[in-house]
């Protein structure tokens, strides 16, 4: 009879392995390179193999977990995963169940950046139509940066040099590390509540991608997007592009450049005013000249059309008529004089004096009535005899 040996069934063995492994190998961080990556279209689970030069292991990341992945996984990418070892008993296979996955190495932050960028692009946060207009001549500029930084000093120097009439209001924020994004968001909100700034400069001097990381955070980008006051970013150096730069209303390559973009040169503004003043003078001069020309023209027309000439001609006519009238009157007068003389002569011939001149007398009674016959007088009555030259009183003495 064969010696009875103790044994395990395959299922039992797999079950034992599962208990041993799963109890001890949970919540591990494992680093490796993704290969055989496959995203199951209907379930949304991710399947891939994690490998390095010495080995490989199968991995699964269920949909519930892979929502938190902020980059697009692909073959060849080095990742750091948080996982537990699981045993698939039916097949005796070992695989890692992944809870969290981050890109590892140089590409890590870059990938996260790209992922967020794509997300915000798809939401339209970078679209030009959402950008606010930067005021040309702001009176008050809000500055969000570290109050002790060189960036802030540069900004103040540039603004004071270019536009000394501009007031600067600093809202000091932390621009690096864990608290940075929170204080930047608070700063944006504070300026929006305070309201009395025309434009905001969000700025930080140069640094590594890790140093500038707060400007790549989604919450900061959304806060910039939400601001009702235009925001100009001047972050790092010319080659640094952050998510904040894409979201802001205007991106400047450096803090100083942001100040230059926001603060127009005082001379430029004064020059513009001088130019406008010239234009106003020229326009008024032109208008006045136009009116003068108009007046000259009217004057000419009035002179030509108007009374004076006509009056002159009328006066001439009247003078002419007057002359003619005078001459007519003269002729008429002469004629009348001649006529009158003749009449006078005739009339004079009829005058009693003319008769008296010829030696006749006229007798008047005492009642001064002309005595026409002898019987008009009684005997002894006095009467007056009027001669051509004097009169005499006589008495009727007898009938002749």
């Amino acid at each position: 009879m064969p010696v009875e040996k103790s044994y395990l069934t395959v299922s039992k063995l797999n079950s034992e392995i599962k208990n041993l492994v799963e109890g001890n190998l949970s919540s591990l961080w494992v680093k490796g390179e993704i290969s055989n990556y496959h995203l199951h279209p209907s379930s949304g689970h991710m399947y891939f193999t994690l490998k390095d030069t010495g080995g490989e292991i199968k991995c699964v990341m269920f949909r519930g977990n892979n929502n938190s992945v902020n980059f697009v996984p692909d073959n060849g990418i080095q990742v750091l995963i948080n996982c537990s070892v699981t045993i698939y008993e039916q097949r005796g296979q070992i695989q890692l169940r992944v809870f969290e996955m981050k890109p590892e190495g140089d590409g890590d932050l870059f990938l996260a950046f790209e992922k967020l960028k794509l997300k915000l692009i798809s939401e339209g946060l970078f679209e030009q139509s959402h950008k606010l207009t930067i005021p040309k001549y702001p009176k008050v500029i809000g500055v969000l940066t570290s109050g002790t930084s060189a960036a802030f000093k540069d900004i103040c120097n540039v603004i004071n040099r270019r536009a000394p009439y501009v007031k600067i209001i600093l809202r000091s924020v932390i621009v690096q590390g864990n608290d940075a994004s929170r204080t930047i968001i608070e700063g944006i909100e504070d300026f929006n509540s305070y309201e009395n700034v025309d434009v905001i400069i969000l700025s930080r001097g140069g640094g590594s991608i890790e140093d500038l990381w707060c400007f790549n955070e989604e919450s900061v980008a959304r806060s910039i997007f939400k601001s009702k006051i235009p925001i100009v970013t001047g972050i790092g150096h010319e080659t640094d592009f952050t998510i904040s730069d894409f979201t802001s209303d205007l991106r400047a390559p450096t803090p100083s450049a942001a100040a230059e973009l926001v603060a127009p040169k005082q001379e430029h503004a004064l020059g513009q005013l001088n130019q406008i003043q010239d234009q106003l003078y020229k326009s008024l001069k032109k208008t006045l000249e136009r009116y003068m020309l108009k007046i000259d023209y009217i004057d000419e027309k009035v002179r030509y059309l108007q009374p004076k000439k006509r009056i002159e001609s009328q006066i001439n006519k009247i003078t002419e008529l007057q002359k003619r009238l005078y001459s007519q009157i003269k002729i008429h007068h002469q004629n009348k004089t001649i006529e009158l003389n003749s009449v006078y002569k005739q009339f004079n011939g009829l005058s009693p004096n003319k008769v008296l001149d010829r030696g006749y007398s006229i007798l008047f009674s005492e009642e001064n009535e002309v005595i026409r016959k002898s019987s008009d007088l009684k005997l002894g009555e006095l009467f007056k005899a009027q001669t051509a030259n004097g009169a005499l009183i006589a008495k009727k003495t007898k009938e002749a």
Partner: protein
Amino acid sequence: MKNEKKDIETAIAHLEELVVKMESGKGSLEENIQWFDDGIKLIEVCRMELNDSEKKIDELIKNAEGSFSVKNIE
């Protein structure tokens, strides 16, 4: 802008409108003179503002009750 005060940008835009109106040759002589006077006055106001070189650097302070004040930090 939230700034209700007449800022230089608004003033310049208004001045440019005046120039356009005056250059159009429209309007009576009286209107043109009025526009000119308005323009010159506005230019003077802007010049005064632009030449106000009293440098001001303040810090925004949020008070406990949530209101804001500014403190000079020059």
